[in-house]
């Protein structure tokens, strides 16, 4: 460590605090979001399953939160035979 470094030792703690605050603000939203997507997935699946036999893996629920607009994307692949005779 040079003489200059010794006297201008960096104060790294504020950097740690700021990085954490930024990261956790992001991660907390994400954690809540994945839970919501999981709940929606389960309930939407239950409603559809009441009427049509459907494969659990063929239902995709995606939640994207943006600053301006958020979107909920639901992608359900229907088996051909599901709609026959209806």
């Amino acid at each position, binding site marked *: 460590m040079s003489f200059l470094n010794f006297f201008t030792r960096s104060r*790294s*703690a504020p950097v740690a605090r700021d990085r*954490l605050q930024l990261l956790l603000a992001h*991660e*907390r939203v994400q*954690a809540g979001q994945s839970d919501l997507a999981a709940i929606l997935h389960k309930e939407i699946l239950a409603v559809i399953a009441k009427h049509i036999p459907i494969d659990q893996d063929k239902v995709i629920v995606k939640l994207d939160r943006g600053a301006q607009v958020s979107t909920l994307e639901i992608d359900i692949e229907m088996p051909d035979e599901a709609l026959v005779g209806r």
Partner: protein
Amino acid sequence: MSKVMVVTSGKGGVGKTTSSASLGAALAQAGQNVVVVDFDVGLRNLDLVMGAERRVVFDLVNVVQGDAKLPQALIRDKRVETLYLLPASQTRDKDALTEEGVGRVIGELRERFDWIVCDSPAGIEKGALLAMRFADLAVVVTNPEVSSVRDSDRIIGMLDSKTQRAEDGGRLEKHLLLTRYDAARAARGEMMKVDDILEILAIPLLGIVSESPDVLSASNVGSPVTLHNPTSAAGRAYIDAARRLLGENIVVDTPPERQSLMRRLFGRKAAVA
């Protein structure tokens, strides 16, 4: 009325086991009936830290699976007669525990003890979830270090969503125990301050345990620091934390800075600038 308290952190190596043993011992020293339960199946260490490693016959997994009765597995501390240990298994894996089995054992422990201290394994897997599952309150052990604070935040989220209390719409008390704190480094801006961490995690402070050689000496000889050296700074910090858990209103002292040689020679400016 018994209380189930989980000691948890997410990150490993921050002092969960040391804190479980010390808080458990301090509560027992205050006259409470206490059992400390090791949930770290496969990597048990609470027995070693509490100096009972040669007295383990049956363990939590044996009791959960019905191979042993609870009294057969409980180990009574040789120093404090109201302190007991329920060790984890060293040979099984974490899948040996089931929610139903753990719930039954916790129910039995509630009938015998005032405090059931659950020493959680690190991580966010099954073992950690089972340790917090039936808790009435939680002690979140955190080091003043970015990875530990991040993991604590994650664990706080899980305490608020994955515990039985949270699912029943109840409130789970959460307390922050800051360990390995170094006031001098925090004053120099090299380590996050207590207030920084409290602001980020937003849960009340139970205590501050400074980085201290006394903690290592105590675990070396298999004795909680509250018993081995109750007048040391770490011992007093744990004893005060236990008194706060018992409802006493004691102000948390921020540990004093030890003056470094440089600071004594050059004063504050030289060290801080």
